[in-house]
């Protein structure tokens, strides 16, 4: 089962749309509530990251009987130092984004905490691809 969502950079009112849809489907599959929670938290963080930093993005979700794979691809500034970006509290979010209650520098760290596998590939000036796998 595959799903695809588009994300619009800068549009915070739409952030959370993909994670809510995915959540509804995971409930229909009868996945354990804690597991759903982790996936949804990680996906929501991913969505917000794209909205806050990139110009546009796309989410591909692949559901299989024992795992869910989520790929979040964006066109944006990219991440120069991924290891640094993974640290809690590190953020490059603009003042405007922070004023909206986002950009506390917990995003990537929180995603790592809530997924079984997380890989990040990024090219500065082009964009970032985050791949997450969660096993049920």
């Amino acid at each position, binding site marked *: *089962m595959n799903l695809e969502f588009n994300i619009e950079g800068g549009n915070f009112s739409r952030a959370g749309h993909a994670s809510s849809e995915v*959540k509804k489907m995971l*409930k*229909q*599959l009868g*996945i354990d*509530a804690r597991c759903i929670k982790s996936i949804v*938290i990680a996906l929501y963080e991913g969505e917000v990251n794209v909205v806050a930093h990139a110009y546009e993005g796309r989410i591909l979700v692949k559901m299989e*009987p024992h795992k869910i794979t989520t790929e979040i691809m964006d066109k944006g500034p990219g991440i120069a130092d991924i290891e640094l970006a993974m640290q809690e509290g590190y953020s490059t979010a603009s003042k405007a984004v922070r004023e909206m209650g986002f950009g506390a520098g917990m995003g990537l760290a929180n995603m790592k905490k809530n997924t079984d596998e997380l890989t990040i590939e990024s090219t500065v000036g082009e964009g970032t691809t985050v791949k997450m796998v969660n096993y049920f």
Partner: protein
Amino acid sequence: MSPSKRYHALTIDEQKCIGCTHCMKVCPTEAIRVSNGLAEIREDRCVDCGHCMRACPVKAIYVEQDDLKKIQTFKYRVVLFPAVMIGQFPEKYTEDQIYAALLKIGFTHVFEVEQPIGILKSSIKDYCRKSPANRPHISTFCPAIVRLIQIRYPSLTENLIRRKAPHDLGAHFAISELKKQGAKDEEIGLFYVTPCNAKISSVKSPVGEKESIVDGIINMNDLYNRVMKAIDTKEAPDTSSQRQNLTRDGILWSLTRGEARHFGERSMAIDGIHNVIRFLERLENEEVPDIDFLELRACDQSCAGGIMMTGNRFLTVERLEHRARRYAPAWKLQNTPAIKASKELKQKLIADQIISKPAFSLDPDRERALEKMNRAQRIICFLPGIDCGACGAPNCQALAEDMVSGNAKMSDCVFLQQMWENEGKISTSKAFRNVEKKWGELRFQADCNKRGKRNEGF
């Protein structure tokens, strides 16, 4: 651990139901379907919020209640009612007159359930302090919300506060007071007056506790009518001794912010089940800031907007707020004998853990569920997506899910039927029979006084 079969308060009167779509459209859990011209409630999904009952234009959804004659078998006949009941009476009737009317109807003792609220308040405070990990703490006051969380937000059941509701407090308090006067257990009959059907279900098959201690349920709108018949504006009896433990906090408890104002540094109150759902979606995604306490109520204006309330909800709130000003806050009653002897009562307010009962899975087997979801996704491509409800399901997505679960057919969709007719795949008469079967013959007869016309439900 849980009761074998859940009791549901809502019943559809097949003689009255015209098989329209009003109830189906407002149901927050998509629990209603229409077939053969009648609405059906799927019990595993129903949370007893009563929104369908409110929306029904022909009053075909009703709530059972116990026969009032049942009270006569007891020596001590106690009426337990939430303070919100007083609020629906016109201001010209005093509390004393309302109490007097209740005694005239046949009760021997009158207790508002929110007395003494200080005990419940401190019990909830204890719980919140001792379980900081389960924040935000969600109130279990509204039974419809508790059930909603059980079936739709299972990951949040841990956040539910393990304390009982004011009607339990009132019941235990009444029993202990009457025993002091020499009453025996079997002589006491407790009758709870409910502002809504959710409370009926929670009394008949309580969530998070073994059994209910109430002997009977009375619908508030029914009792309202009886009181109005018995009440006398010329009388001025003094019944204040029965309200000694009633406080400002107790009177306001069942209104919006009635609980939230007391707990946590950061608390929120949300009323209206659709508002609650939107919020719980966010809460589950951890999209909300750090909150200590959540008061969630299924009805707009909380219990003042209860399905079995007679008065206008806003006028009810106004009267109660006005009334509350005459009463002392709960903390001032800390040293009364009732509160001092409350240790045992407090113990009785502890509830068992509430377990989740997810009701939205497509199949117990995950591979089959995934397969069904795939099929539903493909079916969706062919449905019109306007959620008209003419198939008997609340929206196209729900119809697709019903189809893959074997509860609906492609031909239930009137759009697909039209298309097939146009393509010559089915005959016109077959298509007509399909629709007639779904909605019943009566829907096709000319009738200028047809029930369920526009505005009838308002």
